[in-house]
């Protein structure tokens, strides 16, 4: 297994590696536990990189990503998770949102 955490051309994303989370539940928890400043910083940086990231990932058949590409994939999914916090709510949680424990993803990915 490669020692590098992310594909070499995406090494600049290393400061955001704690957003590389495999399940929606984890990504939502991270969003809710983060400040708006942290979310905004990740959103701004990742928004500029996500098209390159998906172009890179599309070279692999889905489900066969090596670990460092898998992390890049999960970072891209986390951008989708936080987008609404920035673009719609200006707040980590949904305004007038529901208790996430009672709004549960099933068979979570």
């Amino acid at each position, binding site marked *: 297994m490669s020692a590098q955490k992310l594909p070499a051309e995406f090494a600049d994303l290393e400061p955001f590696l704690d957003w590389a989370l495999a399940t*929606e539940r984890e990504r939502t928890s991270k969003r809710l536990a983060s400040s708006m400043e942290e979310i905004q910083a990740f959103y701004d940086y990742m*928004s500029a990189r*996500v*098209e390159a990231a*998906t*172009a890179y*990932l*599309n070279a*692999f*058949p*889905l489900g066969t*990503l090596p670990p460092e590409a898998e992390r890049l*994939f999960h970072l*891209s*999914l986390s*951008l*989708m*998770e936080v*987008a*609404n916090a920035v*673009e*719609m*709510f200006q707040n980590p949680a*949904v*305004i*007038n*949102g*529901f208790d*996430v424990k*009672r*709004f*549960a*993803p*099933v*068979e979570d990915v």
Partner: protein
Amino acid sequence: MRTVIADKRWAEKYPEIGTGPVAAEPLISSEHFELEREKIFRRTWLNIGRVEEIPNPGDYIAKDLTMCRASVLIIRGRDGEVRGFHNVCSHRGNKLVWDEKGTCKGTLTCGFHAWAYNTKGELTWVPDEKNFFDLPKCDLGLTPIHTEVFEGFIFIHLAERPPESLREYLGGVADQLEGGGFGELALAKRYRVDEHANWKIALDAQNELYHLPFQHRRTIPEFCVLKDGQFTRLLDVRLFNHHSVYSSDPPEDRVGPATEKLAARFSVAETESRLPRIGSFDFYTIFPNMALLLFRGVSHDFYMSYNFWPQAVDRTDWDIKIYFRPAENAGQRVGQEYFTCLLRDLLQEDATAHEQIHIGLASRAKKELYFQDEEMQIRYFHTVLDRFYAEA
């Protein structure tokens, strides 16, 4: 895309549905809840799931239907046939399968005394059988439940003799959705919402678009209302026997958020879906507790289903499923994640509102509800409810 602004078209199209206020009491009363238990949920076809959930012989799903005081087992037999049974052992009445889904490798074995059944529901093995007294083993299979499939959607009917086939029950909805290619899309996300609200409050709140520019002012503010304060109108409302559909197109000048545009760019699918849409968004209410939502997505068509399972007069298990064309690469999968996160967040806004509406109505401060013309399909749903309440 057409932008229609004419008023009161649906009352004109369906004058028999009326225009007066509608009683609020059925939404909160225990008496109506008991009526629904006996006269609706045991007398209509109920959607339990889809055939893709049990693709292989031996695969099963099991569901406790609190409302029907029943537990249902849907299993694909070794012969490929989908069958439904009461999930109850013939020995002492124990619930046979306790998990919600699984695969039967050999037999379904009761956890109490290991009575075993094959995938056709036949009783195949009784431990210490010789010590029973004239056990009519051939008659002691699982109790079958009427089970039929339409376009991959599995429905059950708990009556001893359903008054009509599933196809007849669905009627005009089936005409519209037949050959829709639903099986070409795959379950992408599923959410279970444990709501402290009546199931009809939840369903009614979803069954119109009037609320979009207000309740969803943060998430999808540009839908439904135009710039000059002028409201857009539904493209179509069709009422069927029991069921309904409303359709809409979004305003032509809608500008989505930045990430939506990104997501749409890298999630373009190469194949078109065959979903039989009427507008860009079609919302079917399939009586009593199912909704089917067809979307023209930004990049490709998709659909959702809702099943509102009553747990108590003020408690509902809202089962939300989102189906996409299976992602062919990571980019498409990321794009889909954007749309599922958006739907999830805006449905959270709805779920919160359902509970607040329940609190409001339960006060009985308001005896009647007022529906505008664009809420005709809710008015119709209540007409159908009344029809069932009044049955012998």
